[in-house]
């Protein structure tokens, strides 16, 4: 994938693979802040209400249908110390339906959704703003519905306590009433002006799409793009043990661990390999021993955050076995930290990860997501094959070192039992 600057603070990357589905994604990024958190969360809702050309929500959706059922996805999210406003459009590739210029029509529409929203001189339509504020309120409240996800988010907030990364991506309900169409438009303009922009495209007609984007972003060159603080690890501290009582049939256990310091690329990949051995793959210790041998749970998995290096384990367990499960999760980690594993386990984890990595470029979704993550994390493109080479270079001692960096930071049990 080639990445090049097309305007001040605007980068365009594209890949013309053999895709039957093309995807264009535009991502705006500014430093995360408590001040405009909720307003940013509300923006995707308003942006989907209409553009200058298609000011009515239904007409905009009908336009998407007419472009062979194009899928529009808008979101506000956070990554490290970045606040991200993103929109993507995907659909059948132009060459498959033989419609020249289809990619350009989609690109124009996506640009308009992000940069030419339907607004009056005062700002976003007040009636639409009021409707969408309620939708955001419902989204914030609905966080409790899926208890597995809720437990993970709750643990994450405890893990990053006191850090901007603890801020909820959907913002705060208390902020909603203070927002109106005018204030939201001001926040929107400020966000757009200060954002650095990444455009990623996978599909045919890529030269034409690049040319169009270059032309459209020519007028955006006066923006002032704020620097974003680099990610950092959470330091070691006493582990927080939290018990949360809710109405559930099955307890949800989450344990988060920190490596205590920033990791270089080789250390990060060593930790990912270690994590695959621990609980990130079907041949892992947690799957084989905790699920299959002890029958304690249906799921028990571990994963690494590439942003912070945090390792999260989560599982659902019968309340009577919760303590047993917690001990089993810790026991398996301690065994691995002592180096109680053989080379076959390393090779199985390595081949599993590299196998998955090799398939990233097969779809437009996989490709754009991979490269965006690479840019957000490193500020540059790193290819799956480069990362695969790093995995190949990881040795047994690197894995033991990675395991031994981990110290528990949060242990959360969401339970239905009051005891």
């Amino acid at each position, binding site marked *: 994938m080639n990445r090049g600057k097309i305007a001040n603070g605007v980068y365009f990357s594209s890949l013309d693979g053999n895709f039957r589905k093309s995807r264009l994604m535009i991502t705006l990024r500014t430093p995360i802040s408590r001040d405009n958190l909720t307003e940013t969360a509300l923006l995707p809702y308003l942006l989907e209400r209409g553009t200058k050309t298609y000011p009515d929500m239904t007409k905009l959706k009908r336009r998407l249908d*007419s472009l062979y059922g194009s899928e529009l996805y808008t979101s506000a999210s956070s990554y490290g110390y970045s606040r991200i406003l993103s929109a993507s459009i995907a*659909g059948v590739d132009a060459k498959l339906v033989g419609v020249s210029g289809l990619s350009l029509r989609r690109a124009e529409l996506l640009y308009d959704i992000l940069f030419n929203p339907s607004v009056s001189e005062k700002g976003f339509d007040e009636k639409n703003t009021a409707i969408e504020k309620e939708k955001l309120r419902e989204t914030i409240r609905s966080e409790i519905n899926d208890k597995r996800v809720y437990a993970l988010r709750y643990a994450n907030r405890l893990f990053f306590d006191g850090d901007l990364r603890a801020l909820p991506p959907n913002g705060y309900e208390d902020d909603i009433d203070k927002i109106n169409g005018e204030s939201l438009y001001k926040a929107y303009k400020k966000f757009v002006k200060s954002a650095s922009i990444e455009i990623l495209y996978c599909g045919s007609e890529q030269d034409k799409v690049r040319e169009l984007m270059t032309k459209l972003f020519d007028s955006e060159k006066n923006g002032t793009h704020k620097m974003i603080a680099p990610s950092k690890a959470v330091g070691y501290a006493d582990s927080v043990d939290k018990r949360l009582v809710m109405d559930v049939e*099955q307890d949800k256990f989450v344990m988060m661990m920190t490596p205590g310091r920033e990791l270089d690329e080789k250390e990060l990949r060593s930790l990912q390999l270690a994590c695959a051995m621990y609980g990130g793959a079907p041949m892992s210790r947690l799957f084989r021993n905790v699920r299959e041998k002890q029958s304690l749970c249906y799921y028990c998995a571990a994963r690494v955050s590439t942003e912070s290096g945090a390792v999260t384990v989560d599982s659902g367990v*019968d309340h009577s076995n919760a303590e047993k499960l917690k001990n089993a999760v810790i026991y398996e980690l301690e065994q691995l930290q002592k180096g109680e594993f053989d080379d076959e386990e390393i090779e199985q984890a390595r081949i599993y990860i590299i196998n998955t990595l090799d398939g990233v470029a097969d779809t437009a979704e996989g490709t754009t997501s991979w490269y965006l993550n690479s840019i957000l994390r490193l500020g540059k493109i790193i290819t799956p094959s480069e990362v695969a080479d790093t995995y190949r270079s990881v040795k047994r001692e690197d894995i033991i070192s990675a395991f031994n960096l981990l110290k528990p930071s949060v242990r959360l049990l969401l339970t239905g039992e009051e005891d």
Partner: protein
Amino acid sequence: MNRVELPVPGECYYEYTHKSGLKVLVFPTVGKRSTFAIFGAKIGSTTSDFMLGNRRCHVPSGTAHFLEHKMFEGEKGDAFTLFAETGASANAFTSFDRTCYLFETTGMEEQSLKTLIEFVRSPYFTDENVDKEQGIIGQEIRMYDDNPDWQIMMGLFGLLYHNHPIKYDIAGTVESISELTPEILYDCYDAYYRPDNMVLVVVGNISPERVEQICREMLDIGRKASKNKVRPIKIDEPDTIVDKEFVKKMDISMPQFMFGYKEKPIDNDISKNELLCDMLLTLIAGETSPLYRKLYDSGLVNQSFGFESSSGNGYFYTAFSGESRDPRAVAVEISKAIAKMKNNGISKSRFEECRRRFLGDILTSLDSQDSVASNMSAFYFKNYDFCDIINSIKTVTADDAEKVLAGLFRENMSALSILEPIDKEI
């Protein structure tokens, strides 16, 4: 192998029938690294009563799903360990009508394919390993007990169906799976895991000839098919519903609903009828419909609003679901919109836009090997293929849709399943 051309430039697949009766479908993809394979059997959670030879068999709810779990454990070890040697990512799923075993890999495709065929052909059930699995599946059932979407769907099925096993959880209950024994599992295996009741689909980086050769090598090993063919016993399900409304409390933020209709099972022209039903749902309640806009702007639904249909072994339902502060009001509005469309007919221009969306959707599904494999296996068990569905999308008319509409969404066959937040002390 027979080459089958899709009505899309440059797309084709190959099909052949092994002497055992197994249907093999291969969809080679150019320029992709991944290979995705599915080995599926036509047995799902709605499989409950059947004749095996002269013997009548009844299996507890959750049997097909339990079998799926147990197939990964062989006499010489588990399948995950074998797949670990190739780096392939393996999994399985059980739906109402089928059970599928699958892997995805970017290397050692042939070895992975051999492993897939071998482990699915080699059941190994013992008292000990059956007992062990009950603990794991018990926790899977508990996980779904905490899932509002699943609970609301099971609530609706309980309203729509008197006897049909679709009303039971795919994984069964802790009680029903405690009845399972190795003998029941072997009966079920012998009845439904016969090659002539199965399909093997391979999509990706492998030649059709090589797949054919591997099938020849591998299908002679493993458990021999029973001489007794299975004869499913027809489920006695009256054309009435059980009740109109179900309400359950859960720890959720706002009410959730699923409003559904019990439809008459589709018995002919399945691909066309299923397609028209899905197009009608889109026209009635999709994002471009007047109903959606009215519900959304009045605050009665949010982005979680959606709809679905599913048809199979003696069942067919259509449903609308989402979060709402007033589910009963949503159900009234949906009924009104359906009645209006039945009276006024379907707008030709909206039907054409809908056709274009469906064509775009089916063509984009060709981009992902797992979608292609999953669709091909699902289509095969319903006796159609990609060509049928693409041709149907291109040729159906608004008149066809109106004819189908007349028989769908019968008012006396509708029911509403509601989840309400539990009352909390403030």
